[in-house]
């Protein structure tokens, strides 16, 4: 009797667990929709840009995920760490001069080792990477795409400055999209893209967090009456508070009238996955 009662309880637990799981999946589905500017899909002007291979950082989101709770875990951590370290140092040095000198030697040794380690890491050795599921084998990574060299630039075009501006506007547009500020979005998009974006109703008050952001200029061209620039944005983004940061890679096609009547505007977004 007791046995069957126990197994009944087990079954109930299982069913309950299964129910929670199913419910979780059902609830999670709407969350999975991308909330970022453009909705995480291809929209607006699509250009024939070379699909650069995605950056080989599959392990990054996992690290980020692990690191995040540690950072928010305890606000006393740093304080206790600092106090403990001070205490240990004080204790070690309080005995006599000898212990102090020994510890100093140890510190110097550690510094030298750290220096050598970093110097080693900086040496231009061929980059090795490990694929999941290949056991301990490592393979030579393909050389990084040197697309920057392929882009033909007009004299005096400040790529760094351009990309910095592009990144800033990327972040601003995410914020404007979160807050549902249509004016701000209109300021940075072509009329066509703005109209297309306007068709989807966005809910204000969501929060998209750019965790890391890289930008690369992959094409610069002048066609008829417009200049075109394609910028590949990649990095990690959290599309709901507390959720895991996911990798993204998308190309933004920016247009600017050749007569200079406006600045660079977003004309379209192309997903790279």
């Amino acid at each position, binding site marked *: 009797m007791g046995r069957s009662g126990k197994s009944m309880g087990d079954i109930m637990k299982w069913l309950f667990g299964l129910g929670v799981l199913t419910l979780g999946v059902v609830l999670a589905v709407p969350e999975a929709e991308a909330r970022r500017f453009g909705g995480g899909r291809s929209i607006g002007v699509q250009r024939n840009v070379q699909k650069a291979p995605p950056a080989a950082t599959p392990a990054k989101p996992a690290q980020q995920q692990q690191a995040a709770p540690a950072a928010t875990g305890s*606000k*006393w*951590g*740093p*304080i206790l*760490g*600092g106090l403990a*370290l*001070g205490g240990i*140092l*004080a204790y070690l*040095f*309080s005995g006599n*001069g000898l212990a*102090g*000198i020994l*510890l*100093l030697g140890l*510190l*110097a040794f*550690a*510094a030298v080792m*750290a*220096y050598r380690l*970093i110097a080693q890491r900086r040496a231009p050795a061929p980059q090795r990477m490990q694929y999941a599921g290949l056991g301990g084998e490592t393979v030579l990574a393909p050389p990084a795409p040197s697309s920057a060299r392929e882009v033909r630039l007009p004299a005096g075009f400040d790529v760094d400055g351009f990309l*910095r501006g592009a*990144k*800033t506007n990327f*972040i*601003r547009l*995410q*914020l404007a999209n*979160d807050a549902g500020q249509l004016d701000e979005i209109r300021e940075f998009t072509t009329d066509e893209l703005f109209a297309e974006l306007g068709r989807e109703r966005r809910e204000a008050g969501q*929060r998209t*967090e*750019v*965790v*890391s*952001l*890289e930008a690369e200029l992959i094409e610069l061209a002048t066609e008829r009456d417009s200049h075109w620039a394609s910028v590949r944005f990649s*990095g990690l*983004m959290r599309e709901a508070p507390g959720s895991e940061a996911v990798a993204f890679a998308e190309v933004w096609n920016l247009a600017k009238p050749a007569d200079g009547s406006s600045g660079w505007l977003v004309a379209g977004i192309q997903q790279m996955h």
Partner: protein
Amino acid sequence: MSRKTDFGFEQIPEADKARRVGAVFDRVAERYDLMNDLMSLGLHRVWKAFAVAIVRPRPGERMLDVATGSGDLALSLAGKVLPGGEVWLSDVNGRMLQRGRDRAIDRGLLAPAVQCDAERLPFPEGYFDCVTVAFGLRNMTHKDAALAEMARVLKRGGRLIVLEFSKVWKPLEPAYRLYSFKVLPWLGRRVAGDAAAYRYLAESIRMHPDQGALAAMLEQAGLSRVEVFNLAAGIVALHRGYRI
């Protein structure tokens, strides 16, 4: 005769200090972060994390990080007060400030960067909830004027956090002296290719007011309830004061 100020152990005309300090940072800018890790054995991260814990940033607050350098402290704060709040980066050195600004953008943080002299901050009175300065006060020509400016831009009830090298606990002194005058310049030569810059670092630490003197300067600048937290036996001290 012009007034003199300290540049490490040297006495130089006041008008020259900003330029000399600027030259030091221009020379070491490339290797700055690496050197910080090597010199402090990574401890500067603990010290900055401690400063963030003392600041206790809340969402929506306005913060100013003076002498932000490559922006370590400002970036940690920005993660806590944005969006809704503001974090301003400021530094007198353009190259260091660029590093801070670029690092902020790469982390998806919109934080305005202003190149300015801490003795003349381009902000209205009572604008910020918190002003921080980490390892920067030491390099300023008129520390009293800079502190007074930081107090001026604070709201009433706002707090100033100063993280700076300080006077180490007495029994530790001989070892610390050996480290800063022998090991540091050697490291500076090997890693950043510039021993003189790191000799300046060691000397400027010696010339900086100790815990008690700096606390008095904060009070002089109009801050109240000044508290001192010693870190690593006084190698570094954190001062906090409120504008009331």
